[in-house]
Structures are given as structure tokens and as C-alpha cells.
């Protein structure tokens, strides 16, 4: 039965997370925007890492057998929590230990033995390199087997939480001549000789979240720190790399949820400020008989709702075992661009107050920009959607 409202349990979760965002994140939002590389100690109570012996399976895709009853599961819980926490502050949300991509990868592909060892760590994910961004199949960091060890060499940039984490999941190739099939991910605990955090970036937004450059130079880790199989499959190139990329099908709706949450924060504040000047939305008058400001608010509300529902759909599909690669990208594309447009417009609509650092509107706009970039830019999402829609390979539709 078609129903796009949240059930009680998820409403409850949403309300709870909203309260956490209001009480824990908002009060220090501007503080860590200003003090860029300080560690937000206030987030300690929100630590997402499971206690030892209770490794969680966050964001796992359900595998249905036969006709299953409708589910609202972990993927929906995840996007709802992320949306509300991002309403509080995206940068701080990204700084919650254990909430990032590294932990998602470990949860998704680690063996039980590896989960035992790494399940409670604070893991970041290192993919991007100075010469390799969206084209993650082209990475140059190498992993060479030497006896019982892997030896990593290369430079990783834009590692979210790379400075604060205790563990890094590193993407590296075991054989450059074999392309995507040879890309594997490796778990490297901090303190391993040969791994060094050399730089923390200064950014436009999400300044509360640290973004690191990490160098690997003759960095040796145990043989069984590889996630997944070390075999390079010859024929199934898409399959092997696809497994690594699959992490993103589950996390893209999450990034889209960040954009939705951040945009809602901007809209809520804008509507509150404008109400003081007498602007109220009645959802009755035609946009053409409304003031330009009201008309713009109506349009932003419509785009925002559409983005929010696309995110929920992608998560719902994952919960119910439906392949959702295209829908996850649709959600991220729509939420990313709508999030950028809304937060920027809110700065403009509120005039000097919007532009001022007295309110958080200008910060929401700066924070929002990254959400249309990381974990697949707008254009990468369009490419994914277009290829699926048109049934084209990456060789045909470049």
C-alpha cells in the first residue's frame, strides 16, 4: 500500500536525532567552523563505534528470499538519522567517530575475524589521490605482497577524518596493468611505520571535519589486513571492482540525506527570519499571486520534498533488497543540487542577515557545497543514472 509517511518508530528516531542535533551540535556549530582543526570533544557521547564484541552491521543490504513483507530497516534509519544530524551541523556529523565510510566498508566486507579486530575502530577511507578523483579506477597507490605482509606506497588526499581516526582503509592496486580488477582495500592502523599524516586541508566549509593528506612509504601491514579476496579476477573485472564500489550504493543515499538535512536547516531558519517580516506560507495562493520571496520559498519547499522522498525511496529499496544503484544516484544528484541551490538562495533572501556570520545561513551554504561533490559529484551521478537509463556501458557513454 502506497504510504510515504514514516512509521512511529522512525518518527521517534527522527525526533530524537533532531533533539541531539539541537542540543549537542548546534551550540558548537560556529565554534568549530572558526577553530578549524580543533577536535570537537563535545561529540564524545555520540561515538558510533560498537562496543567490543558487538560489531554492528550498519547499512547492510537485505537479501530477500521469496516474497518478503515490506521492511523499514537499517538503511531508512540511517538516512533519517543522518538527515537530522546534518540539520544540526554537517561538519560535526562527519566528525562523529565511527560514522564514516571506512567503518561502512569494514562493516560491509570484513570477514568475521577482521570484524573482531577492526569492528570497534574509528576508520576513515582513503581513495582519492592528487592525480585520481572521480576516476577511482586509475589510482596509483600500490600494494605489493612481500612474505606475510603487504607493502603500501603512494599518496592519498581528501581523507575525511584522516587526522583523527585510528585506522585508515586504503585503496591500492596490486597490479597496475590489470586496471580496476586489481584495486583492493587494506586496513592500516595508525602508528604503522611508513604511514604519515602530512597535512590537514583548509576548506570552504565543513571545517569541523578534518581532511587529511596521508603518505604511505614502504608501509607494511599483515597479509590478512586486506578486505575481500587478494585474487585478481581476469574475466570478472566489473564484478571485483563492483564489490568495492557497492559500498557507495549504500552510502550515497546517506550523503544525499546530509544535503537534505543541511538544506532543511537553511529553510527553517530562513522561514523563521522572514516570518518576522510578515512572510508566511499558506499553500493556497497561486505562486503568481504571492510575493517573489514566497514564490521562491514554495519552489524550494517543493524541490526539498522531492529530494527528501528520493532519498527515502533509495533507502527503502535497499531495506527491501531491491537493486537501487540508479535510484541512489538519482537521490544524490537531486539532493546535491537542490541543497546547494536552497542554501545559497536562503543567504540571499535574508539579505545582510543571511550573509552575516551572526546567523548560520552563510555556513550552511558553504557546508552544502561539498555534498554535491564528495562520494560522486553531480556529474558522476548523472553519468550513472544516464548509463542505467540508456543501458550504456562506460565505454559507450563516457
Amino acid at each position, binding site marked *: 500500500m502506497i*504510504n510515504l*509517511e514514516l512509521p512511529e518508530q522512525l518518527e521517534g528516531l527522527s525526533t530524537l536525532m533532531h533533539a541531539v542535533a539541537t542540543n549537542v551540535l548546534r551550540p558548537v556549530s560556529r565554534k568549530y567552523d572558526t577553530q578549524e582543526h580543533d577536535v570537537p570533544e563535545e561529540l564524545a557521547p555520540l561515538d558510533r563505534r560498537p562496543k567490543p564484541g558487538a560489531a554492528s552491521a550498519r547499512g547492510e543490504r537485505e537479501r530477500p528470499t521469496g516474497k518478503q513483507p515490506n521492511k523499514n530497516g537499517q538503511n531508512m534509519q540511517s538516512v533519517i538519522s543522518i538527515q537530522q544530524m546534518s540539520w544540526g551541523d554537517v561538519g560535526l556529523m562527519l566528525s562523529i567517530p565511527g560514522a564514516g565510510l571506512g567503518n561502512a566498508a569494514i562493516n560491509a566486507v570484513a570477514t568475521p575475524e577482521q570484524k573482531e579486530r577492526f569492528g570497534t575502530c574509528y576508520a576513515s577511507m582513503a581513495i582519492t589521490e592528487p592525480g585520481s578523483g572521480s576516476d577511482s579506477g586509475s589510482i596509483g597507490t600500490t600494494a605489493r605482497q612481500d612474505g606475510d605482509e603487504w607493502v603500501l606506497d603512494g599518496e592519498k588526499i581528501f581523507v575525511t577524518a584522516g587526522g583523527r581516526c585510528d585506522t585508515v582503509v586504503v585503496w591500492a592496486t596490486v597490479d597496475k596493468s590489470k586496471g580496476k580488477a586489481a584495486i583492493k582495500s587494506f586496513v592500516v592502523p595508525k602508528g604503522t611505520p611508513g604511514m604519515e599524516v602530512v597535512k590537514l586541508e583548509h576548506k570552504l566549509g565543513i571545517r569541523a571535519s578534518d581532511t587529511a593528506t596521508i603518505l604511505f612509504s614502504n608501509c607494511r601491514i599483515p597479509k590478512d589486513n586486506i578486505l575481500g579476496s587478494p585474487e585478481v579476477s581476469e574475466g570478472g573485472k566489473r564484478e571485483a571492482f563492483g564489490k568495492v564500489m557497492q559500498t557507495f550504493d549504500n552510502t550515497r543515499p546517506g550523503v544525499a540525506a546530509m544535503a537534505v538535512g543541511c538544506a532543511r536547516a537553511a529553510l527553517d531558519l530562513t522561514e523563521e527570519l522572514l516570518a518576522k517580516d510578515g512572510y508566511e506560507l499558506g499553500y493556497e495562493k497561486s505562486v503568481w499571486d504571492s510575493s517573489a520571496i514566497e514564490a521562491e520559498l514554495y519552489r524550494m519547499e517543493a*524541490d526539498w520534498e*522531492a529530494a527528501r522522498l528520493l532519498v527515502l525511496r533509495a533507502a527503502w529499496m535497499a531495506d527491501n533488497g531491491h537493486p537501487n544503484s540508479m535510484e541512489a544516484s538519482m537521490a544524490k544528484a*537531486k539532493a546535491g543540487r537542490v541543497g546547494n541551490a536552497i542554501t545559497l538562495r536562503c543567504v540571499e533572501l535574508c539579505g545582510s542577515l543571511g550573509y552575516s556570520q551572526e546567523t548560520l545561513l552563510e555556513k550552511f551554504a558553504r557546508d552544502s557545497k561539498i555534498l554535491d561533490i564528495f562520494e560522486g559529484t553531480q556529474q558522476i551521478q*548523472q553519468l550513472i543514472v544516464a548509463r542505467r537509463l540508456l543501458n550504456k556501458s562506460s565505454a559507450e557513454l563516457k
Partner: protein
Amino acid sequence: MPEEPVKPLFDLSLTDEQQLMRDTARRFAEAEMRPVARKFDEAAEAPRSFYEKTLELGFNAVQIPEAYGGFGAARSPVSNMLLAEDLAWGDMSLALGALSTLAFINTVLDQGTGSQQAALLPRYTEDGFHPAALALVEPGARFDARKLKTKAARRGGGYVLLGEKTLVPFGAEAEQLLVFAELEGEGPAAFVVDAKQRGVSAQREAYMGLKPLPLSRVKLENVEVSAAHKLGEGTPLDLPRVIDLARIGAAALAVGVCQAVLDYTKNYCNDRVAFGEPISHRQSVAFMLADIAIELDGLRLLTYRAASRAEQGLPFRREAYLAQLQAADKGMKIGTDGVQLLGGHGFIREHLVELWYRNLRAISLLEGSLPV
């Protein structure tokens, strides 16, 4: 005793009945609407036999109570919305024509008294096409449903109507019109008017699109109606509800037409070769198609949400408003891009993209046309 869930789970799957209805409607749209869309548009007319064929789908009688000859299914804005979407995929003008009577039935079911339902509804469960329509919009550049210029006044035991309506489907051919008017000193009201009755005259209108649909300008010159013909009799009309439900109907039509645009342009761009390969291999073309798909799905979800809230008895004004607004904005963008993707061929009245473009322009002005 099993505990009743207070709120259902988020769910995008159809019930078995809805799936069956969709399959049937979609087949009908494919076989009986799409092939004649161009011909009827050129002729600016659809034969009565077409509308008679739509009766096979049986939608008029489904939600009419058994006591009045119907099937007595629960009133379902979701099912009506899905029907509008699927038929509009075939052709929007023909969908509006086919569903005009249902719009009348829905409004009588929502706001008519028991005796009015008993008097008005049985004929729509019988054989034959009985066109009926809502008459809300008034001529002029800016129409505002909150300030109706058509006036009703009490006279004797009944009412007298004076004013002018536009965009009325079927006009003089309609057997019954539901005319919305400002009742002196009492607010908006709706009156069941026989299109053949004294004082009613209808003039066929011609528009940019919606050509096969006989839209008419209807004049009401001191039309007398009895007290029993005021919808709801003593109960005041809930006009905003009619408008809100019609916003969902308009948005659903846009979803259907936009899906038609996507299905067609997707195939066209995969087939059309330029510079040695399908034009869909170029990002400028492929991304336009991706954006059509993304915006269409966003619009569809907004529309479904509004309808499902309406069906569950939750407030749905905001959701319906946003759905129609998004339908007007994104629908027109999709219609425009659909023509663009075909280049010069999109401009020729051979492909349907130019027809969809013309029809999509109407979404924002379909106020009170199709309450679901």
C-alpha cells in the same frame, strides 16, 4: 487480539488490486489512446465511441456505493491518481475527457448529501457515456478561486446563478455541470446545473493544447436551480478540498505525460545516429535524459505522497500544493527538453513530443478540473 498498527510502514508497493488496475489502464492507454492521440489532436475532436470504450475500464462505478448501483469500494484518491497517470501516459486530453465524469462523481461523494448521491450517481453506473464536469475557472488572465466572480443568490426556495466559466470539459454536451459560485453573504458553493437548462449557454474554446477535449466557455445568465441542487444542501462547501484534490489530479496527469516523454526520447536518442554514434553517447544529451528521469521521479513521489495523505485522512494541502507546483515547473521543463532532444524533428507534428509540450503547459491552470 492483534494490535492495530497506529501508523503504517513507508511503502511504495502497490496493492494487488492497484497493480491489476494499472496493468489494465496501461494496456488501454497503449492500445486505445496513444495510436489515436495525433489524429484526434489534429481533428480537435474525439469521437463519442472513444469515450464509450473507456467505460470498459469501469472506473466510474468502482467507488460509488452499492446502494446506488456501484461496486462500493472505498473512496481512493491513490487509485484515482494512478489512473490519471496511466491514462495521461496514453494522452492527456483524452485522459481528462475520460476522467471528467469521475471528477464530478468524486466531488459528489465527498460533499453531496445522501439524497443527492442517490439522485445523481446511479446514472454513472449504467451503460453509456454520460459526460459531466466541474466548472470552476473563470475567464481572465488571473483567476483566483478564493474570489469567485460567478454569483449565486437565494431566490424563492432555490438559487439563481450569474456568471461565466471557462475550461469546462464538454460544455453544452455535459449532462451535468458542477458550477462553483460565490453565494451572497455565505461563501463559496457548488450547484448541480443541467447544461441544457434555460440561461446556460456554451461556446467551444480553442487552446494551445488539449485540443481533442471539448473545452468550453459557459455562460450562466440567471440560471435557476432548486435548493436540492446546492451540493451539501445546508452544509457549507469545502472548496479548498476540491482544489487540493484537483492539484493531485493535475500533478498525476503531468507524471503520466512526462513518463511518455522520457520513454520516447530515451529510445529516440539511442536510435538516432550523428557523428558516427548514437546521440545518447554524448553527455549533453545523456545528462538531459538523466535529469528528466530524476525530476520525474521526484515529482512522482511528491504526487504519491499527497494522494496517500489524502487517502489516509491526513492534512494534505501543503503536499498537494507542492506537487502541482513541481508538476507545472518540472513538467514544462521536461516537455521543453523533450522537443529539444529531437531537434528539428521535435518541431514537426509527426512525433508526439510537440503535442506533449503543448499539453504540459496546461498543468498549472488545471484548477478544480480533476479532484482525485
